[in-house]
């Protein structure tokens, strides 16, 4: 029996004290970044971290300017628990903040010393407030959050009550706005309104269309017993803040409803053994975005269909600090309908002819490879049935247009003009020839004449190209334009458009080898119109591109720094750049297989310096930049 009691007590104890910081992320959260302090501090210990110079400033800020030798270790934060940063939005409010573990509450209030304790209606939860920020502590976990009602929520309510009470509607844009002391509301009346405040009543209140009125709006009055519109609106804002804070707190601390409890995907993400995890719910973004409200009210059924199409549209990510690299693995999740389009879109083969147009010294290049034809056909199959269900004549005419275009347009020509492979490169900055005007002075008369002479300016060199099966179509367009302007001329292997960029620099079009390329690199157009041959990227890099999936990007930061002209930067900036030059590395974005429910991406930052500790490497760079820019 005693053992049973002990077990029960242990269970209760465990249940109360085992709550983790990630259990208190509001369910409205749209994006969360969770830092796994335990894993991270294995890479860089807290002792090492607090010794960085940039941390001194952070710690001074933390302890209100006077650290007295205190460091992050004295902040009362439990670094054995995760630190979660969240932002969320519902149809009525925005909520943002942090959740973290507490190791020492007394020490914690050395940091949060401007927070005042509030009365709490929730057992076991302590509430502290500083201006708009709220700190809620339950057990050994704290939630620091800010709840902001949406402006539209507050304004709609304030306006409707104000007008329903017979006051004039404020004329927001009138210059004389603050000059008249017309309509005012007594404090007593305002208090009554606050008392009867209930957002559910919102619908029952009469809403009056905004109308410009001749009557101007009153200024703040010296009489404390009366409130003008703005003061009244502020009261509504405060009441809403309290209401939404209570709503979130009740869900988190009484009903145990949090993002982790309602979203399996997020809960699963938190189990990953990564230094940091990322979560973004795009479907919530679609629902909450104000831009769709009009669409939602005009085409409610269509909106619901699109909402369904986007359900499950969640992006999750894991951040790993490896020995010599930092890896960010992303997983884009979506529903089957959208997935069927993405799947077709990515059913494509890279046009290898682009590889010879990427120079081996390229500081940045990307490739994008999709099957537009199949994706189009699949989109048609997905979208048309949705539109067919709608009874609205506007939707119906859009559908008819779509169907007619589908029948009449020559899809072989359309999708043959751009077959789906695309690439771009950045080859640094080069001096290009421009024309400038010079004043020539006659030293006898001091009169001047204007003379056009050649000048030189710096310009980034870029190349952009697409694969095509129909070289005749771009050729037809170029030929037509050349008939309209003498600036565009056919030079046999390439076309040249004089003064095309910024009225100074020519642009070249290469339309051969199944590619249509646009570039301002004279060397490529004139000397390498069939590709760079031996100077093109290595076979190893080409292999990476081929294996990189439908999207691949590569940035070499060392080359990037070298290619930018030094005169573009200030001495201080140059000092920082020189300091980090040897510590930079390459960044690579690759995509994995695409299936009906998910696509994987990987962003990898590989360091030049083999330090064996990427977390320390990044902190070293931050510290160098901080020290040099002080």
């Amino acid at each position, binding site marked *: 029996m005693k053992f049973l009691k002990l077990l029960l007590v242990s269970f209760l104890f465990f249940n109360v004290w085992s709550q983790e910081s990630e259990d208190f992320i509001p369910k409205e959260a749209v994006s969360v970044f969770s830092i796994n302090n335990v894993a991270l501090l294995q890479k860089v210990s807290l002792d090492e971290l607090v010794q960085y110079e940039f941390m001194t400033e952070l710690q001074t800020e933390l302890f209100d300017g006077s650290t007295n030798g205190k460091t992050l270790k004295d902040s009362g934060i439990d670094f054995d628990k995760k630190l979660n940063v969240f932002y969320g939005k519902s149809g009525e409010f925005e909520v943002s903040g942090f959740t973290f573990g507490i190791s020492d509450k007394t020490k914690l209030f050395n940091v949060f010393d401007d927070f005042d304790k509030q009365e709490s209606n929730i057992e076991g939860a302590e509430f502290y407030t500083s201006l708009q920020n709220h700190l809620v502590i339950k057990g050994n976990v704290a939630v620091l959050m800010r709840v902001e009602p949406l402006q539209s929520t507050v304004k709609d309510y304030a306006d409707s009550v104000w007008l329903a009470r017979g006051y004039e509607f404020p004329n927001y844009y009138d210059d004389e706005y603050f000059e008249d002391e017309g309509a005012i509301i007594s404090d007593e009346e305002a208090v009554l309104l606050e008392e009867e405040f209930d957002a559910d009543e919102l619908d029952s209140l009469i809403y009056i269309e905004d109308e410009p009125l001749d009557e101007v709006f009153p200024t703040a009055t010296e009489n404390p017993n009366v409130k003008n519109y703005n003061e009244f609106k502020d009261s509504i804002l405060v009441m809403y803040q309290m209401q939404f804070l209570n709503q979130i707190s009740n869900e988190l601390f009484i009903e145990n409803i949090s993002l982790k409890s309602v979203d399996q995907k997020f809960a699963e993400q938190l189990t990953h053994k990564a230094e940091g995890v990322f979560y973004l719910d795009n479907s919530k973004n679609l629902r909450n975005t104000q831009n769709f409200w009009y669409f939602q009210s005009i085409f409610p059924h269509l909106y619901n269909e699109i909402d369904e199409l986007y359900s499950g549209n969640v992006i999750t990510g894991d951040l790993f600090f490896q020995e010599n690299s930092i890896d960010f693995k992303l997983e884009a999740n979506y529903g089957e309908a959208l997935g069927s389009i993405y799947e077709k879109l990515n059913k494509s083969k890279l046009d290898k002819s682009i590889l010879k147009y990427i120079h081996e010294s390229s500081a940045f290049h990307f490739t994008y490879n999709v099957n537009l034809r199949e994706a189009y056909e699949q989109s048609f199959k997905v979208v048309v049935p949705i539109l067919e269900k709608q009874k609205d004549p506007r939707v119906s005419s859009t559908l008819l247009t779509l169907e007619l275009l589908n029948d009449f347009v020559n899809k072989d020509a359309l999708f043959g003009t751009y077959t789906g492979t695309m690439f771009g490169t950045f080859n640094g900055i080069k001096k*290009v020839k*421009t*024309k*400038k*005007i*010079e*004043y020539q*002075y006659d*030293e*006898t*008369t*001091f009169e*001047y004449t*204007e003379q056009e002479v050649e*000048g030189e*300016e*710096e*310009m980034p060199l870029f190349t952009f190209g697409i694969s095509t099966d129909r070289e005749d179509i771009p050729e037809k367009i170029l030929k037509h334009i050349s008939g309209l302007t003498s600036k565009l001329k056919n030079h046999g292997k390439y076309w040249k458009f004089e003064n095309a960029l*910024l*009225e*100074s*620099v020519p642009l070249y079009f290469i339309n051969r080898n199944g590619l249509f390329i646009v570039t301002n690199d004279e060397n490529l157009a004139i000397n390498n119109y069939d590709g760079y041959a031996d100077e093109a990227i290595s076979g190893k890099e080409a292999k990476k591109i081929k294996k990189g999936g439908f999207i691949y990007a590569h940035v070499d930061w060392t080359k990037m720094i070298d290619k930018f002209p*030094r*005169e573009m*930067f*200030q*001495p201080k900036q140059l000092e920082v750049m020189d300091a980090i030059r040897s510590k930079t590395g390459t960044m690579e974005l690759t995509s994995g297989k695409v299936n009906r429910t998910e696509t994987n991406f990987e962003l990898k930052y590989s360091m030049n310096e083999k330090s064996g500790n990427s977390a320390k490497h990044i902190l070293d760079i931050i510290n160098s930049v901080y020290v040099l820019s002080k």
Partner: protein
Amino acid sequence: MKFRIIFYFSVLFFSLVSCIDIFDDLTVHNDGTGTYKYSVNLSASKLKINSILALDSLDGKKIPSIIEIQDEINRVEKLFKEKDGIKNVSIETDFVNFLFKFQCDFDSLSTLESAVKSILKSENWVKNIEDLTPTWFDQNENKFSRIIPDITIKRGRELNPTEIDLLSAGKYRSITRFDRKIEKFENETAMLNPDKTAIALQTNIYSLINNSKLLENTIYLSPIKQQK
């Protein structure tokens, strides 16, 4: 307000665009009337200017479009045209080569000076009105003095050596012409034309930014010949 945006934009240009060629050409006739020409040539930096114009904002300041700049120039031109004693005002703009040429005729040097000053004041172009107090042109019978108003651009940051080199390559040329001969002048760097009716001063933009007094001069003229 727009004028202020254009002004910020001009300051931004002068900070970022290095190669500038400016000249002013002042003709003063014996009866006090004359012609004033002012030209700014930014064609050597047109690529950079076009790149800036392609942006929405830079350093937190809105970048105006070419249409907005032209509108403001037209407005300023109109302001000059409305001034008493100022005639034949024209501002030519070339947004391909970024050449800007201002020209006007004036009844007297004081009308020219007060017209420019009143526009600077009304448009709130100068921060300190006191900066406009000194007289720019001073002429009595045979003596003519001119100063360059201290409009040195207050830079928010230090110039790097390359910028200094490029600004040093930019020229400012100031020419003053008369109907009669110049007998002597005080600025030793000035240059007379062979028939001694025009005098030119030239410096580089970097030096002028640091010392606007470089183009100051006092000129002593031969007496006006009395008609018989």
